[in-house]
């Protein structure tokens, strides 16, 4: 277990550490910093201490981690189609693998996925492990967890990335528990530190805070990664990699749940795929405001998004919700209309290429993340934007 100690000789009682502690567990006792229960050894106090009076000692682990090499990406598929987040994981995975001087590998589980596996290689992958078996056709916890655990035990990757999709979020925690390793949810940033460890950055507290997380003593370092945050891998001409077909011992596979039926959401609703999104919030004043939002979206060839307020009030369906409790989007253009810009909303759209905000309140937080801001009544401004867009030839 880690240990934190304050050297009373060095501590000047300045109190900087007291303010730096995100967990509020440092106080001054007789002019000397004292750490209470609740410390999670984040090191914020060590960084701010001007006299280097605070030391954190971390337990050294005896496990030999150097056996673990390479970056493994889970090549999630739904209905035989590789999920778009996989290409982003491959883009980031290649970068991390190159930094470490190691291989990028990908694993595909499914039925009839040979073609897709071959295609994935050309995105800069050294090895694609393919398990092709009817049992793996659609995602189920048991056979997926077991197959991936077997692969990880055999190939010993240093880093294992999965998309933070609903499948990834169901699967990764089971896998991490089975492998007894660390898992970081919903990462938006990945980097390698000077010791070669993976620095995993993710939002917490509803996006209010970003936290950087390390998994120093366990391998693989597992993370689920948000869609539309990392840059997509490009196809590489003449890239050489291989597909390794792996067999599955079905007698050893536990197989408890069965899928009785499945149905797709109505098409055309997917805001995660849209290049242009026009979103409405409480400033619309009522459900009928979304007619105007839809009109602008149609004029620009985009999709309709919404803030949590608008969805909670029943003005529009949940699948349109952008934000931490809805969907993360990264379109080329995001137009926020009558949305004040709560942290939870910003967390779902702030990586959009260009952001436009239309709001009555000049002090609305949405303007801080916008490239272009219009202060005004959206019922006056939006019809003019529709007009201008149409006359500009769209």
């Amino acid at each position, binding site marked *: *277990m880690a240990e934190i100690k304050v050297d009373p000789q060095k501590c000047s009682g300045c109190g900087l550490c007291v*303010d*730096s502690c995100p*967990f*509020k567990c440092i106080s001054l006792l007789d002019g000397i910093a004292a750490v209470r*229960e609740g410390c999670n*050894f*984040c090191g*914020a106090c060590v960084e701010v201490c001007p006299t280097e009076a605070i030391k954190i000692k971390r337990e050294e682990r005896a496990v030999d981690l150097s056996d673990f090499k390479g970056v493994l990406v889970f090549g999630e598929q*739904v209905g035989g189609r590789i999920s778009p987040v996989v290409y982003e994981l491959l883009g980031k995975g290649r970068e991390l693998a190159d930094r470490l001087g190691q291989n990028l590998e990908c694993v595909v589980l499914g039925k009839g996925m040979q073609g897709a596996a071959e295609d994935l290689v050309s995105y800069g992958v050294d090895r694609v492990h393919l398990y092709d078996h009817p049992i793996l056709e659609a*995602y189920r*916890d*048991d056979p997926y967890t077991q197959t991936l655990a077997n692969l990880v035990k055999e190939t010993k990757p240093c880093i294992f990335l999965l998309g933070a999709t*609903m*499948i990834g979020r*169901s699967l990764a*925690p*089971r896998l*991490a*528990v089975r492998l007894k*390793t*660390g*898992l970081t*949810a919903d990462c938006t940033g990945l980097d390698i530190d000077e010791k070669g460890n993976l620095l*995993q950055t993710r*939002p917490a*507290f*509803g*996006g*209010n*805070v*970003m*936290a*950087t*997380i390390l*998994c120093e003593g*366990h391998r693989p370092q597992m993370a689920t990664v948000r869609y539309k945050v990392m840059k997509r891998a490009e196809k590489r001409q003449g890239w050489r990699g291989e597909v390794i077909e792996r067999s599955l011992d079905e007698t050893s596979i536990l197989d*408890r*749940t*069965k*899928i*009785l039926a*499945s149905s*797709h959401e109505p098409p055309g*609703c997917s805001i995660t795929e849209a290049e242009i999104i026009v979103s409405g919030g409480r400033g619309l004043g009522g459900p009928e405001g979304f007619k105007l939002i839809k009109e602008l979206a149609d004029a620009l060839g985009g999709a309709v998004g919404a803030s949590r307020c608008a969805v909670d009030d029943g003005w529009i369906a949940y699948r349109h919700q952008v934000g931490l409790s809805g969907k993360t989007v990264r379109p080329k253009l995001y137009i926020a209309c009558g949305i004040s810009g*709560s942290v*939870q909303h*910003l967390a779902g759209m702030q990586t959009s*290429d260009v952001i436009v905000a239309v709001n009555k309140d000049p002090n609305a937080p949405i*303007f*801080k*993340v*916008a*490239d*272009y*801001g*219009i202060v*005004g009544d959206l019922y006056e*401004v939006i019809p003019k934007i529709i007009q201008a867009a149409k006359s*500009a030839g769209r």
Partner: protein
Amino acid sequence: MEIIVCVKQVPETTEVQIDPVKGTLIREGVAATINPFDLYAVEEALRLKERYGGSVTAISMGPPQAQSALRDVIALGCDRAVLLSDPLFAGSDTLATSYALACGIRKMGSYDLIICGLKTTDGDTGQVGPGLAEELGIPSVCYVRRIVELGDGYMVVERTLDDLYETVHTPIPCLITVTKEINNPRLASLKGKLAARKAEIPTWKPQDIGADPKRLGSAGSPTWVVKVFHPSTRRATEMLEGGPQSQAEQLIAKLRQRHVL
């Protein structure tokens, strides 16, 4: 039907602010509350109990004051509650939390179903539910939005998977995590509030549940936070002036210039 629900006490997150100068969380005066996502888990458990009989037990891990979250769920109708609380549990990441909860649940005895909320509003990971199922060696179905059928030794549920809905058959005992679509959580009744006030909530320590201290708290957590900071989101905002007509024309011209239109 013996049902266990997992709940967590969290800060009322919308009030968590970052000090603009020091860049640290301001926690003073932030009230604690039950994780809102857990209320859907509790509600679903109560509905199943009302329909099929049995009992609902809530379990939580946290500091001693997390008792109040457990009193809240007893007020809603849970029959009993247990708190795992000890300094050795502090600093647990999702792996250590899954392990601790599994030890606590094993001590409780037999059960048919464990229900968890989608995630918590503070940690925001959603990892403990499926992790706990793996620790216990039972099947898990995440993102359940409807329980279709509960039969002898099995249940049928409808789950969401991104752009897909699936009807899944699973043996019980099993663990499910539920979405906000599944129900509308009730409010506490007066009778429930009285029961909550009188309820005895046992506190279990690692030795009570046979947990290995090496797998708990910071010692049992492979991941740890190296840094917390405020996301920098600010862009150089250009405000467009001059009335709706002119604002609209400027905007379209600028968007075309930047080739987003």
